[in-house]
């Protein structure tokens, strides 16, 4: 422990003692004032160093905040662009459908084909549909934190599955139509539906029989799952029946690789 002892016993530079011993015994007034100047100069330097070190520490925090804001802006821009492209795509798809209908309406076989196409498109979710149904709005608990009270992808999946089993014919979550190709999954702390991140509250529109659907939903496993969340984690949910709901088309539905077997 001689190192620590030495540290405690001689905390000031040996140089001071040596200089004091060798210094001639005078130390007049001029000498002392020079001491003071040196001391002031050193403390000024020290204060300067302290201030810039502290300032550096403080400024690096807003820097991180700035980068974060920049990223958020870029995400929002990309989102806006994505939505614009989606809108454009659904417009074009509508135009294709109109032209298709015009082409098929000429003869009777064409009309039959059009009828079949309409049915299939309705089932597949390629056209917007409207009708009576229920609207479920589900939101995180008021005191939600990272651990509890937040809606997870699995909760939304259960809710949607409960609606399917209770007779829903078309479902949209926050304006995203659910089709056979729509995934509901978690990415980080956000839920993505059809690969778009959603923010709470989640509005689920389901078209179906308004007389039976709420009761059947309440009895379904999905409905019970959500009810459990509401009563145990204070998740907020309201279910209302609506006379007219518009469930949009899934604009991105397209099969590029799958082919019908045998028919041609």
């Amino acid at each position, binding site marked *: 422990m001689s190192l620590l002892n030495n540290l405690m016993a001689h905390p000031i530079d040996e140089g001071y003692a040596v200089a004091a011993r060798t210094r001639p015994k005078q130390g007049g007034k001029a000498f002392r004032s020079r001491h003071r100047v*040196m001391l002031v100069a*050193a403390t000024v*330097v020290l*204060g*300067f160093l*302290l201030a*810039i070190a502290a300032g*550096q520490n403080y400024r690096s925090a807003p820097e991180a905040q700035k980068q974060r804001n920049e990223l958020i802006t870029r995400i929002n821009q990309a989102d806006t662009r994505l939505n614009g492209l989606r809108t454009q795509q659904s417009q074009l798809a509508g135009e294709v459908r109109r032209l298709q209908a015009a082409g098929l309406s000429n003869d009777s076989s064409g009309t039959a084909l059009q009828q079949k196409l309409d049915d299939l498109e309705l089932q597949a979710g390629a056209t917007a549909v409207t009708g009576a149904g229920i609207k479920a709005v589900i939101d995180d608990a008021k005191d939600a934190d990272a651990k509890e009270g937040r809606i997870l992808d699995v909760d939304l999946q259960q809710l949607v599955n409960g609606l399917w089993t209770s007779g829903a014919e078309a479902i949209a979550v926050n304006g995203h139509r659910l089709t056979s190709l729509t995934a509901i999954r978690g990415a980080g702390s956000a839920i993505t539906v059809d690969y778009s991140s959603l923010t709470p509250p989640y509005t689920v529109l389901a078209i179906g029989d308004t007389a039976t659907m709420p009761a059947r939903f309440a009895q379904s496993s999905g409905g019970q799952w959500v009810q459990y969340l509401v009563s145990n984690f204070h998740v907020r949910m309201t279910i209302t029946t609506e006379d007219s709901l518009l469930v949009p088309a899934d604009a991105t539905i397209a099969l590029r690789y799958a082919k019908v077997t045998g028919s041609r």
Partner: protein
Amino acid sequence: MIAVLGLVIGVVIGLLVAPDVPEWAQPYLPIAVVAALDAVFGALRAFLDGIFDDKVFVVSFISNVLIAALIVYLGDQLGVGSQLSTGVVVVLGIRIFTNMAAIRRHIFRA
């Protein structure tokens, strides 16, 4: 008193000028500050002991700062930068505490 005044002036200058610390100097700045603190407290104690010497002070101030930065730099190159920084802070911290105790005894006689 005059030392505190100098400190305040330094802080004010630092805050007003607020220079951008270059990227390479950022890990060394806090260590340099601690080293400078040690030199100043050592000087203050020597002053109160009546053995203050400006040449010793200037040399110890500059060499303290440079050696502290050099040790951290060396540690960074060897991959033990944070451990060496801790070591430097501990040693200088002990010295500062001991000097402060001596200064306290000088001022308050307790």
